[in-house]
């Protein structure tokens, strides 16, 4: 059966899920961190560190799922370090984020040198496309369990932020540190916890890169997914469910160039890659104005000042 242009659509759908999953985890992590009023630009370092840790643990233990867990823990440590340093007066969270990016990637490359050659056990995938006899559709619907986990996390996180006491505390701290202190909430501790949990999610996002797709460990593994988390969260208007749609959009846009190549459209490969960034910038230009700030933004965030 000839799929032709349908193939492009199917490939974009598959790419949206395959390439979008790490975006989903880093953006959920960043979303939680930003809800508490801090911005963590260092998730790129966390992501790479998670990728390395996940790969190394999977190789040594033979269990990719243990690798995913340890990647999350490594990310958690980096997140806690970031927010601990930021909890001192006059320390700028954006600058610390850039430093953490440098430190995290440096540490991952340093410790990960021996793991560039060997091949670790891979995370299994679930075939949701077995009913179809179109190979492209089958390939597109080969979904990693982490994507499903990500959907659950997005739903649960959104619900918890809205409906639980813990979520309310995080939001109060993110809206006004002064009000939170007046209520007797431990502002720094809540922020450290939120950033550490955010780091945990970002670390898992990294392990997806090394243990599922593209499935290797090398120094060029990440293409800036961690840095872009900040933009994704803005696009998602600080809604965890929004992070899911935006991550799929991002993944789809990244898959558009290569899948168009398969039907002979070769030009504009790099321009397609830039579409998400241009869209984010356009969205910020449209929704920001000197008179009002972004809808849904936590007011303690340095981005809004």
């Amino acid at each position, binding site marked *: 059966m000839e799929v032709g242009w349908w193939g492009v659509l199917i490939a974009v759908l598959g790419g949206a899920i395959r390439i979008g999953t790490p975006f989903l985890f880093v953006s959920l992590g960043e979303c939680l961190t930003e809800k508490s009023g801090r911005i963590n630009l260092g998730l790129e370092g966390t992501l790479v560190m998670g990728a390395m840790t996940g790969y190394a643990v999977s190789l040594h233990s033979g269990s990719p799922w243990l690798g995913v867990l340890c990647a999350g823990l490594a990310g958690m440590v980096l997140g806690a370090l970031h927010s601990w340093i930021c909890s001192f007066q006059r320390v*700028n969270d954006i600058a610390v984020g850039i430093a953490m990016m440098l*430190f995290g990637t440096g540490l991952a*490359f340093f410790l990960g040198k021996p793991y560039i050659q060997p091949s670790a056990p891979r995370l299994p995938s679930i075939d949701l496309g077995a009913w179809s006899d179109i190979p492209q559709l089958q390939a597109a619907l080969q979904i990693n369990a982490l994507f499903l986990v990500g959907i659950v996390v997005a739903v649960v996180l959104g619900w918890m932020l809205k409906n639980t006491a813990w979520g309310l505390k995080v939001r109060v701290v993110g809206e006004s540190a002064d009000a939170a202190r007046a209520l007797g909430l431990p502002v720094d501790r809540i922020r450290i916890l939120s950033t550490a949990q955010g780091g945990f999610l970002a670390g898992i996002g990294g392990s997806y890169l090394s243990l599922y797709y593209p499935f290797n460990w090398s120094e060029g593994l990440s293409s800036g997914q961690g840095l872009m988390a900040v933009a994704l969260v803005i696009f998602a208007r600080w809604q965890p469910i929004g992070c899911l749609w935006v991550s799929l959009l991002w993944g789809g846009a990244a898959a558009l160039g290569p899948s168009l190549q398969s039907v002979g459209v070769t030009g504009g490969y*790099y321009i397609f890659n830039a579409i998400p960034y241009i869209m984010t910038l356009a969205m*910020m230009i449209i929704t920001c104005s000197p008179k009002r700030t972004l809808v849904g933004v936590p007011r303690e965030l340095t981005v809004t000042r």
Partner: protein
Amino acid sequence: MPQTLNKALEPFLIIVGSLTVSMVLFGIFVASAGADPFEVYQTMYRAAFGTSFSWQNTLVRAAPLMLTALCTALPGYLGLIIIGGEGAVVMGGLFAAIVALTMPTAPPIVVLTTMALAGMIAGGVWLMIGGALRHYRAVNETISSLLLNYIAIALLNHLVTSTFRDPESLNHPSTHHIGEANMIGVIPGTDLHWGLVFGIVACVIAWFLMHHTVFGFASQIAGGNVRAAQVAGLPVGRLILIICCAAGAAGGLAGMLEVAAIHGRANDTLNANYGYAGILVAFVARNNPLAIIPVAVLLGGIRASSGLLQRTHELPDATVLVMQGIIFLVILFSETLYGRFSRLQKQGAS
């Protein structure tokens, strides 16, 4: 102790103290990796500053850092955090190469001047977009300049693989070579290209502009309190645009120098993280253009030592990345010490 001495001594002591703490932390790090920290530091010193050859290696790396540090340092006076140096370098290098290719018969001095102007305009306009969005649309400049980096890199990759591609650059898509005659050459008596001179001159000019002119004074007021500056009748929007443009021009010049002094063509080597390292330099120098010069040399030295570290101690090349990360974190952390420290000093003096 007199107040003025205190004021000058405080940042100096804090910076020296932070560097010492970072060296201890990094020493522990390499020791836990099985290397002797004292030998590692000796090797680093030898590789960075030990011989005239290593000095040249260091200074070549320091030159672009001085320029990209200005991309972050100058807007810092206005209280803006711009991290778009990478984009300015890429746009500067790209447009410098493109204009050079449109004038094949012009004499080298004309070509180089035009390249420098084109690079500075391209970089300046690129960061000015971020400044303008900030002022007129209240779009956060940190995020927009980060996004602009990615858009610039995509534009570079697109143009060098399509319109401006040299068909002979098979594995590494690039523009055509700008011609050996148009390369900028070295400072007589050394192997150093002129980038170092441009870097130092740019930093000195930036320092003079920000600390000894009315324009710089106005910018510092606007950086301290936008509302007060507006009440005083200062054209805050124009200050933002001019400063972002100057900052971008410095980055664009760094990109032009990469093309005219090293590669001879524009390709993805322009995207060599000089922009991000420049942010580090600017923060460590606390945005002071004169302090940028020694900090850039120090960081250039650290980066230059990576090769020898790898050969003599079998430490991976990422070791210097870890060291940069540690220094950066400790120095940012030390920001919290300002003020507390001077109180201690006053108590000690009285």
